[in-house]
């Protein structure tokens, strides 16, 4: 069936080219039926890509090794869920997945907004189509997942570290995020192309940006937990270029989600918002380029890579076209209002934007510098963890503080007297927390102490906002306190969903500070019967066991864990030796304390033939708050994303008032 897959992709390419050409012509010449036809082509492109994806999935599940891609990424013994995950696990499959999500999002965004922004959609369609042309060209002509070969007896299998349930969720969320950023980009560019620089492109894409941003955030947290439990080095984020690839567009999108509010409330930052959307989309493309071109292995592997030069050319073209258009529309994008005071909510959002952008560009430089140094000087100079950690503190801590300041300042300007009154409680809570922590000995890490103090400040502002808001809603006529709370959130989901997300970021900051600034590490080579101490824990090495599972040999060391006189049970740590892949992975042992959020993390680094094991053990205070932050983040995102029927009705009514026709 490879022929069907190839043909379906060829159809997608044809439809995308048609949607680009016909869509652009329709928009330029003002032809209604041609514009509708281009929109239909985008929808049809989704269905033809769906057919191609179904063909590839069927081949993966059936282990049809006549597909070169299937043979390279799976094996007969690979569990079915990982065979499915191989769809996005390799280069060609992931590009097809990009295309599938892109065409789906394009068709959906057109459908959802045609009731009130039809004249804008006409210009967004060719932009969607242009991106679809690029990706469909790649999977048709450069990196096809449907190349065939005489089938080998078995495939080469999947990298052991990828054989993890997170392989099913983590990449999918990241791709949803990367591709989701195409929607604001397409509408922003459509707005520039058409000269309709009113706010409709912002409103049309607000939820899409939020969705893409939330998906990227969830994807990164899943990836962090995956690295923590599977990769086996004792951490969850290593500033690896692949991790940075997802973090950069997330930071740019975070900046946009804040600055877009300034445009909505004050009509300011119009150029800045277009620039942020362009940056977020370009970084999403750059992220895909980083992870898929082979450039991270070596600059030379990039030049030999089939897709690398194409990607770089497309990114350059995207940036050049977007900036040219932006420059042409500058007079129309001039803001009617100015920043009235450096002490105002919009100013706080602006500082937040500058810090986020500075962090984003610092990370970008950290990713690009080794590549440039290799290309120019022939040797790779890597910017290590200390570089990133330094700038995370420099930009991250003020960002954390601003999360608490922003919600309490008025739009336009705030008086000093008002600030003193508003900040009284949060500041008191923060200072008391800081003082107590110093007494408890947390002063050993100044950045950690500052992070905790700022976190207390932000959490106090969030609680204050919810309490005051609920009280006001009750006073305005809500029958009960839960009713008032519900009314508060449902009347302004973005604001209060945003506060919940801020609470998640605070939990994240506490978890990161606790587990990195206040952790304990111990290493020892033990024979069965020997023990070691780490922090308040004692670990006694009991035995070593070997067992066979379907695709690997598992070796596990069992340790008895105790704290003081209290027996805490046993823990297993070891290695898996994968037969087909001929690779060995670390399988760590983790004991979580649900009450304190602390983890005891054991790595069996080296296992000798005589049964002795070299153990590396970490005690990570509060690390589980990071994963709890993920759940709170999802909750906040869902609140903010929840459809607002009142707003939709208002937008349609506004469109009717101005004469934008209803859907035909």
């Amino acid at each position, binding site marked *: 069936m490879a022929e*069907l897959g190839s043909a379906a992709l060829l159809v997608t390419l044809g439809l995308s080219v048609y949607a680009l050409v016909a869509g652009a012509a329709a928009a330029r010449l003002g032809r*209604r039926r041609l514009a509708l036809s281009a929109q239909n082509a985008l929808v*049809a492109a989704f269905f033809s890509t769906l057919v191609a994806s179904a063909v590839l999935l069927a081949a993966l599940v059936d282990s049809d090794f006549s597909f070169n891609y299937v043979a390279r990424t799976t094996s007969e013994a690979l569990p079915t869920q990982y065979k499915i995950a191989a769809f996005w696990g390799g280069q060609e499959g992931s590009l097809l997945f990009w295309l599938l999500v892109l065409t789906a999002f394009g068709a959906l965004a057109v459908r959802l907004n045609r009731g009130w922004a039809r004249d804008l959609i006409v210009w967004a369609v060719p932009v969607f189509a242009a991106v679809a042309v690029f990706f469909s060209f790649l999977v048709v002509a450069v990196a096809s997942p449907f190349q065939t070969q005489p089938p080998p007896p078995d495939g080469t299998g999947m990298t052991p570290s990828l054989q993890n349930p997170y392989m099913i969720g983590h990449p999918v969320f990241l791709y949803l995020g990367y591709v989701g950023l195409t929607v604001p980009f397409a509408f922003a560019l459509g707005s520039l192309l058409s000269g309709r620089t*009113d706010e409709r492109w912002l409103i049309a894409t607000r939820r899409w940006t939020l969705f893409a941003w939330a998906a990227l955030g969830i994807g990164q947290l899943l990836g962090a937990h995956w690295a923590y439990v599977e990769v086996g080095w004792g951490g969850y984020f290593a500033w690896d270029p692949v991790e940075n690839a997802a973090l950069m567009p997330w930071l740019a999108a975070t900046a946009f989600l804040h600055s877009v509010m300034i445009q909505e409330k004050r009509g300011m930052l119009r150029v800045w918002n277009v620039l942020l959307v362009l940056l977020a989309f370009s970084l999403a493309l750059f992220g895909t380029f980083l992870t898929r071109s082979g450039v991270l292995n070596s600059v030379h592997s990039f030049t030999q890579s089939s897709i690398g030069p194409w990607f770089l050319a497309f990114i350059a073209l995207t940036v050049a076209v977007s900036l040219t258009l932006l420059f042409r529309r500058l007079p129309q994008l001039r803001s009617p209002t100015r920043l009235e005071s450096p002490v105002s909510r919009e100013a706080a959002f602006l500082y937040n934007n500058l810090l986020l952008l500075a962090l984003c560009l610092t990370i970008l430089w950290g990713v690009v510098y080794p590549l440039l140094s290799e290309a120019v000087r022939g040797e790779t100079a890597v910017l290590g963890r200390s570089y990133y950690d330094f700038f995370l503190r420099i930009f991250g801590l003020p960002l954390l503080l601003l999360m608490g300041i922003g919600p309490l300042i008025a739009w336009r300007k705030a008086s000093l007297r008002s600030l003193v009154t508003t900040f009284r409680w949060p500041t008191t809570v923060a200072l008391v927390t800081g003082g107590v922590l110093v007494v408890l000995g947390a002063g050993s890490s100044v950045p950690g102490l500052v992070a905790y103090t700022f976190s207390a400040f932000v959490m106090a502002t969030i609680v204050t906002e919810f309490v005051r808001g609920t009280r006001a809603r009750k006073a305005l006529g809500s029958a009960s306190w839960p009713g008032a709370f519900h009314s508060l959130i449902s009347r302004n989901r973005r604001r209060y969903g945003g506060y919940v997300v801020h609470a998640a970021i605070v939990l994240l900051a506490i978890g990161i500070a606790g587990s990195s600034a206040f952790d304990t590490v111990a290493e020892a080579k033990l024979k069965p019967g020997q023990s070691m101490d780490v922090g308040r824990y004692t670990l006694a090495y009991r035995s070593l066991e070997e067992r066979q599972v379907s695709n690997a040999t598992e070796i596990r060391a069992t340790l008895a864990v105790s704290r003081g006189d209290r027996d805490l049970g046993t823990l297993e740590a070891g290695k898996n030796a994968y037969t087909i892949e001929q690779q060995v992975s670390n399988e760590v042992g983790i004991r979580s304390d649900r009450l304190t959020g602390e983890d005891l993390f054991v790595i069996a680094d080296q296992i000798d033939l005589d049964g002795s094991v070299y153990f590396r053990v970490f005690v990570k205070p509060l690390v589980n708050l990071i994963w709890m932050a993920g759940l709170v983040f999802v909750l906040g995102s869902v609140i903010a994303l929840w459809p607002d029927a009142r707003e939709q009705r208002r937008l349609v009514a506004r469109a009717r008032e101005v004469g934008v026709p209803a859907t035909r």
Partner: protein
Amino acid sequence: MTEALILAALLAVVCVVVVALPFLKEPEPESDSLDELDEGERRRLELLESRDRSLAALKELEFDHRTGTISDDDYRTLVGPLRREAASALQALEREAGMPPSNEDGEGRPPAGRS
């Protein structure tokens, strides 16, 4: 191979029909022009956006004042300009529509289209 090619041809035909659908449904339409906004409509859209922005800002200011996030002094300083902005947008909209302006605060006529 043949089966795959037949399916591929079928897919291509269906896609062509879907793409051609607007022309098949309306072979000879009364008008094939896109519904473009003219200069006046664009101006009206800007005014509506400005009106909605001011009214939303007023609503938020009122609520923040009620919760205590905004002090009485700050509220008094901020509410005036916001009311004037809203009034000015409403009056401009009325002028555009050729209607007599509402009272001097511009608060006489409820904005259309808002719930």
